[in-house]
């Protein structure tokens, strides 16, 4: 039944139009918030339709829609999803719904515009994940910056202007190189279709330049060390919803970009430069892990832990070349790519949960300093239970989704090089160190001060918001098969593309 509906178009335009309507309804109408909630819920339900109707036996694009858009240049409104993009779209719709719920009583300043910004964001992000035309992809990739720029700038903390300008210019700087790369690819292949880019033959020099352009664009998004510095600033200043979307989804667009562009279009250059990207990833995992240890601000700590976790994604994507070199069987490579994908999804949910949890505390105390807290468990037992659970998931506790992705990547890394695996595995110690130490300082011990003493536990809205995320994190942790199954065919196909030289 989902095959006939233009499901992807609905998923893109329903929230965008809904967002515009929410602005028009304005702050005064009481129905504005229920309306935004309905739009977000409806979008999420529709996105489940993608999962139900998805055929996991093929790597071909599904739910394809193709209409001419700019005929002069043969640019199409071309949408479709495969095993990589479909789970990310569902992640997007769930996160957005949570953001709407999280904003309910909290956002007092221009709530209609706040919710509208996130609804429009949602549509744009879904479009990024489903665009199969390079210009269409780029348009949404860039358009996404506008709502996020406003969200951080209008609803952010004291240093918000600096943070949002830095965020915007950093990512804009990265993406203009992507534009050049796409235009060059269209010059060579005479088409703007991303799948045609996959086929086009390129010399090693061309591939290396293209990969560098992709790297600048997507490394800023992921973000990889050393172009990560915008992220802690943006996270600290952003309102809770902004942090959630930033961490849960926009970072994933970087990883998705590597999957969709860098690996299949420039396999030989990726092979030639994989040492470089692996090095950056391992630096992110180890060095940023230490940096996280030193943070005194809750959001900054989670931001740095995000960078470290995303290091696993890029590591998983690029160790496949070493695995191919070492082992003849492709099993390790499958493990690496799937591990990276699971890590993306899992980090999406866990980081969303962590930022929402910080938001819950911040709404009550209006501070993010770790030292301002202590003994929160005494006054907020229910909340503390959730927070400790998510912290454990963040540290990679077996049974939670955080464990699955990291474990798969580490396992695959053994087939590539022992030292990669060794360094990557330090995250299990570092991650545990910085999260558990944070938990200890914030939640356990004596009640630190009067403010903590007067804290009230989470209400029903907050409870269900965190509980639903806890269920998802547990579910993926205990039974990742449904998630792995949908991406299996796509991963296989990607690996055949990656293993074929284009020279």
């Amino acid at each position: 039944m989902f095959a006939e509906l233009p499901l992807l178009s609905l998923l893109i335009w329903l929230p965008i139009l809904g967002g515009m309507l929410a602005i028009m309804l304005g702050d005064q109408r009481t129905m504005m918030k229920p309306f935004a909630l309905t739009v977000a819920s409806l979008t999420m339900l529709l996105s489940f339709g993608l999962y139900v109707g998805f055929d996991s036996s093929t790597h071909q694009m599904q739910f394809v829609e193709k209409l001419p858009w700019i005929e002069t240049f043969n640019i199409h409104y071309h949408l479709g999803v495969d095993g990589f993009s479909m789970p990310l779209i569902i992640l997007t719709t769930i996160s957005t719904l949570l953001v709407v719920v999280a904003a309910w009583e909290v956002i007092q300043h221009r709530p209609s515009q706040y919710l509208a910004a996130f609804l429009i964001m949602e549509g744009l992000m879904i479009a990024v994940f489903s665009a199969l035309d390079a210009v269409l992809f780029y348009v949404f990739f860039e358009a996404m910056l506008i709502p996020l720029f406003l969200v951080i700038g209008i609803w952010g903390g004291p240093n918000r202007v600096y943070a949002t300008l830095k965020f915007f210019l950093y990512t804009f700087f990265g993406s203009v190189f992507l534009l050049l790369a796409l235009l060059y690819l269209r010059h060579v292949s005479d088409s703007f279709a991303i799948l045609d880019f996959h086929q086009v033959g390129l010399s090693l020099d061309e591939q290396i330049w293209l990969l560098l352009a992709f790297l600048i664009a997507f490394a800023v998004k992921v973000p990889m060390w050393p172009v990560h510095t915008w992220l802690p600033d943006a996270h600290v200043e952003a309102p809770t919803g902004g942090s959630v979307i930033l961490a849960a989804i926009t970072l994933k667009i970087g990883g998705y970009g590597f999957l969709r562009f860098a690996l299949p279009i420039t396999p030989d250059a990726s092979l030639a430069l994989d040492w470089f990207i692996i090095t950056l990833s391992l630096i992110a995992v180890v060095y940023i892990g230490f940096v996280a240890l030193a943070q005194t601000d809750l959001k900054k700590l989670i931001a740095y832990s995000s960078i470290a976790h995303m290091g696993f994604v890029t590591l998983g994507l690029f160790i496949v070349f070493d695995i191919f070199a070492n082992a003849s069987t492709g099993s390790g490579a499958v493990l690496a790519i799937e591990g990276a994908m699971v890590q993306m999804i899992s980090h999406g949910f866990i980081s969303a949960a962590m930022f929402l949890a910080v938001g819950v505390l911040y709404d009550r105390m209006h501070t993010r300093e770790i030292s301002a807290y202590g003994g929160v468990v005494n006054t907020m037992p229910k909340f503390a239970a959730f927070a400790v659970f998510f912290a454990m998931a963040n540290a990679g506790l077996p049974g939670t989704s955080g464990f699955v992705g990291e474990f798969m990547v580490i396992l695959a890394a053994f087939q590539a090089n022992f030292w990669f695996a060794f360094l990557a595995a330090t995250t299990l110690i570092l991650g545990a160190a910085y999260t558990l130490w944070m938990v200890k300082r914030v939640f356990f011990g004596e009640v630190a001060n009067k403010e903590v003493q007067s804290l009230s536990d989470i209400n029903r809205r907050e409870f269900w918001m965190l509980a639903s995320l806890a269920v998802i994190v547990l579910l993926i942790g205990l039974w990742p098969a449904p998630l792995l199954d949908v991406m299996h065919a796509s991963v296989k196909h990607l690996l055949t593309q990656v293993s074929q030289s284009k020279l």
Partner: protein
Amino acid sequence: MFQVPNMLFALPEMLMLGMACVILLVVAFAGARGTDWVYGLSQLTLLSTAVVVVWFIGDGGLTFSDTYIKDNLSDLLKLFICIVNMLVLLYSIAYLKARKLLQGEFFVLAIFSTLGMLIMVSAYHMLTLYLGLELMSLCLYAMVAMHRDSAVATEAAMKYFILGSIASGMLLYGMSIIYGVTGSLAINDIAQAVATGTGDETILSFGIVFLVIGVGFKFGAVPFHMWLPDVYHGAPTAMTLFIAAAPKIAAFAMIIRLLAEGLIDLQHHWQDMLVMLAVLSMIVGNLVAIAQSNLKRMLAYSTISHVGFLLMGVLSGTQEGFSAALFYTLIYALMTLGAFGMILLLSRQGYEAENIDDFKGLSDRQPWFALMMLILMFSMAGIPPLAGFYAKLTVIKAVVDVDLLWVALVAVVTSVIGAFYYLRVIKVMYFDKPVVEHRLEAGSTMQIMLSANALMVLGLGIVPGILMKICTIVFA
């Protein structure tokens, strides 16, 4: 044997000339009382000219002994010049009234200047081109000087006049060299002479240098940009708007007629010159704009950078590049119209909203127009899904396709630098608290048209295909 020229091809110009004389008479006899009438007549003139252009769209050819051309390009550009100037007059009226600058002469000058633009667009002979250019420019000089009591405006007018005259002189000198080599001033004769290689190429390239300098002056491309910020800043905002929008469309016609149609076979000579102009314009325009606190001055430098982008399309020397440059010109005119229109909208009696800080907290006071300004600024910065992005996309694509990757690289990097100052305007509107009251004094027509103008920028960003197609057909 005397042949009657095909007058129909010049019907829009003849209509406009006739109406201009009528307006002149009305101004002379009705005096200050008749200003509203004159305004209505001027709008009617522009509207009826646009209608005539649309009515006779399609067939075309040369007339007046091959000195005048009517083709798809001229039709499209004339239509846009008329529409743009209608909006300019509409946006200016309240501003001029509040400053007691609303005299009949303004409309006479505006209509004659528009006539000059139309002649430039249709000129297929260097003398006709020069005639149109001077008619346009002399009216513009006088318009800038109309605010007699303002020292800045007078200074700006002087500067504009002197530098504009130098530019015209350069252009004439270049034309005379070309004439000396090819023996003709008609564009098609020159093209033929160049194609058959009858002239000395060295001397021709010498002539091209002067043509490019002249065109560069008129566009305001670096290093011939010195007049532009001062004139934009000094002139009353309504005049700035007039200078910034339609004359660029006419200048585009000039560069196409001269370089792309007359001297296309010498592309290897003028390409490098335009590359330098384009690259320098993008770098200087975008870098210096950062330092500006006056919005008009900032937009002047932003214009310089836009000229650099526009020239990228022309320098590629392909049909596709020309249509990209045409697309860029039209989108640029639309965005400039909106941006200066916004300054005019917020200005009122004794208050010029021309500093960036004057926009502080606009989203608190006028959320709708803050949103419109946001659209315009993001579009100028080249962020999708707004029209400015596609303009940049097409010109960058044009240079990538002729393997000038380094120029494309300069373009994208400078556009990141450029994004900063556009973002600053959005920052003051949305993130800062208001310091002045933003009261609107303009009429509802202007408010509606300005909104339509900005929404057009958004609409063209969502469906850019049609205008792009038109721009391609024009050069096919």
